[in-house]
């Protein structure tokens, strides 16, 4: 009648991702993300690559509303 389940409360150790495996992903995607954020947040404001205003104007409202200095 008394079926006790005395399983100790143990926290199962989580599988970790080896940092050696993670590093190339982090570097590649980190650079890509920085580039993307640059074009949305700062291009054709302080620095212009390429020159002109088309990119600035296209992402203009996003740049203002996401809190980046615009002009």
């Amino acid at each position, binding site marked *: 009648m008394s079926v006790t389940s005395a399983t100790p409360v143990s*926290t199962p*150790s*989580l*599988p*970790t*991702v080896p*940092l050696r*495996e*993670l590093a190339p*992903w*982090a570097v590649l*995607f*980190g650079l*890509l*993300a920085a580039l*993307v*954020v640059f*074009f*949305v*947040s*700062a291009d054709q*404001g*302080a*620095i212009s690559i390429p020159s*002109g*205003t*088309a990119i600035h*104007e*296209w*992402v*203009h*409202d*996003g*740049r*203002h*509303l*996401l*809190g*980046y*200095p*615009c*002009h």
Partner: protein
Amino acid sequence: MTARVFLVRGLLAGLLAGLATFFVAHAVGEPSVAAAIALEGSHSEDGHNHGHSPADGHSHAEDGTVVSRHDQRTWGLLTGTVAVGTALGGVVALVAAAVAGRMRRLTLGQSTALVSAIGFVSFALVPFLKYPSTPPAVGNADTIGSRTGAYFAFLLVSVVVAVAVTVLAVRLAPRIGTYGAVVGGALAYVALMVVAGRLFPTVNEIGDFPADTLWYFRRASLIILATMWAAIGVVLTGLLLRLQSRERVVIARRELAASL
């Protein structure tokens, strides 16, 4: 779990966060942008156009732009929120992958949610407190270089300090306890950012811009940033938890099969 499965889910979470941010930004933020541009138009006659004259290719008025205002507030805004959302989602996921199982007793869901929360505070909230967003028609075109530099330098300091105190708190937790490590880490971040905030130049180019329009714009901006980070955190945590429970089922089945 591999880096790939984290990144894929981060990109998906970021994409969805970008879409959600677009709808919020379009509904909450665009009225303030329109109000600011209308003010700019009415001010530009009295020599108060902050360098937004068509001469330097930077007018917000419909006739002086390459991209129409309609495109700017729809497809342009969507491009910006989705691009930034996807980039941030991927970065958050890779950071979540790096800390998963390495933050003491935090589960995968807890550590991922914590990374998103620290990301919001250090990447969005604290930079906003020092350099709040400004609507169109505010800001001197001559200082855009120094303002951009200061903003991103402060952002970098904030993120680096946040990462450093978090790593330190995790390291010190076994010795001083979780409570002490969390409170100490948070206090250290606040103290260092207050010092950094005092050292960085203050920007005030508001002039006589109406305070109510400015407040509505900044409130909208904060809501938009919170939407993006909340959506990234919630969706990514949910996706990773689902993946984890699926993997556990597979492992349990394998163990059962092995025991037969």
